């Protein structure tokens, strides 16, 4: 397909300004069995995260005497995309994302408190719309907090990209597919430390610097939504239920 024009009259295809997020809705504690859970709608992305642990680490040769092992599993449902039916089982992409997401949370979880155990983070992409890994990290952080796993911070993530020569926050699927660059970033908003950092396409040194500043600003908004979602759990009386 031919590359469409991504910015028309100073607005993006979905009507956003350069530094606007898509609509984001976060709900914590939507599952009954998982120790913690969260559901995030981010644009058309629909992502569910569930956490189990700390529990016995199997196989045993993976366990550490010093800290809990943190394992994330990022998985896409075969019906999540607008295109063809997906194949089940891990792809090279989902294995890579599982690894970098695990590493994000190894940084903030106070894992020394639980030697010989594992903490499992399961992420299911139920509908995908560009930017699933950032929405997944944001959901997983809320699920971990909902499970009562001690953490130094509530991590969130968002991407910055370049479309028609301009830096744009939170790339849409079209901007992701046809833009010049995509740079997903996860941060600990309390001190601004960067915990996931990937990038493809071409950016100048200054564009990376400006992009990261845009991410830091957006992270404040996202982390406020995460905190509100977690506090709302304690105002509900009903059993956990997923509202999609």
């Amino acid at each position, binding site marked *: 397909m031919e590359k469409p024009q991504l910015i028309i009259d100073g607005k993006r295809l979905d009507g956003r300004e350069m530094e606007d997020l898509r609509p984001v809705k976060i709900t914590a504690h939507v599952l009954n*069995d*998982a120790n913690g859970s969260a559901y995030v709608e981010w644009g058309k992305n629909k992502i569910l995260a569930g956490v189990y642990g700390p529990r016995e680490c199997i196989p045993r040769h993976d366990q550490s005497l010093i800290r809990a092992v943190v394992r994330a599993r990022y998985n896409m449902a075969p*019906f999540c995309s607008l295109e063809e039916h997906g194949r089940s089982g891990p792809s090279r992409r989902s294995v890579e994302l599982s690894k970098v997401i695990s590493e994000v949370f190894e940084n903030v979880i106070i894992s020394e408190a639980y030697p010989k155990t594992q903490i499992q983070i399961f992420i299911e992409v139920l*509908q995908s*719309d560009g930017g699933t890994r950032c929405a997944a990290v944001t959901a997983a952080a809320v699920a971990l907090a909902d499970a009562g796993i001690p953490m130094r911070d509530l991590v969130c993530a968002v991407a910055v990209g370049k479309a028609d020569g301009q830096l744009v926050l939170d790339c849409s699927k079209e901007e992701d597919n046809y833009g010049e660059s995509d740079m997903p970033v996860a941060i600990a908003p309390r001190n601004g430390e960067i915990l996931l950092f990937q990038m493809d396409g071409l950016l100048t040194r200054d564009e990376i610097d400006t992009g990261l500043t845009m991410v830091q600003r957006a992270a404040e908004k996202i982390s406020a939504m995460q905190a509100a979602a977690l506090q709302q759990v304690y105002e509900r009386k009903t059993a956990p*239920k*997923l509202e999609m």
Partner: protein
Amino acid sequence: MEILDELSRDALRRLIATGRRADGRDMYSYRDIGIQKNPVPNAEGSALVSLGKTQILVGVKFDIAKPFADKPDEGVLSTGAELVPLASGTFETGPPREEAIELARVVDRGIRSSNTIDLKSFYIDKEKVLGIYVDIWVLDFDGNFFDAAGLAAMAALKSARMPKVEDGKIIRSESAGKLKLTSDVVTCTFAKADTSFLLDPSFDEEKGMDGRITIATTPEHVCAIQKGGWGAFTQKDIMSLVDISFAKGKELRSLLQ
């Protein structure tokens, strides 16, 4: 956690002996049922069903497929299920386990035997037919995934839009109308504990049961049965459970309207 299951079994037996269930239901009542239609619009059809604390999402996708050699003039129906590890502390990562495969096959048999989908209408040419893919995603597990998945699959099929097909290619942005279905298949699952039967067993009840039977019906016919577990059933038991399944089937079908 085998020992915990044994403890549940003892607790269940004691309770059933007094004619009660832990959540206060009577023997042939369902837990609260919720159906959300079309929660995943990227799929051609979808539904999220909650049955008590069990929550299951089903997505339906269409693709171009090759016809099977023995049915060259028919489309392909394929049903998959995953016991997603976030749904239960007892589910594991990795390839589908036998429980997931059994679940997918039982739901598939109900849909297939009822002929509710006219697969002949999915014929395109000698090389190509439409494939319809029904994927059952168990998201939160508290027992009886058969009935929840059956209901979610039917609700997802009822919400499904046919994609337009042109020159042997799918044009997803254009709809060719709703998927036509001739009848609504619903399933009823009973657990057997000692000599009692319980409709819609919770996970605790499943841990304590001897056996299980799932009966799928259309308004007129039984279209799939699956017995599971160690326990045995008498002919009389089965006939009475078939009768109850037809009666309960009406209730379930009214929820699908």
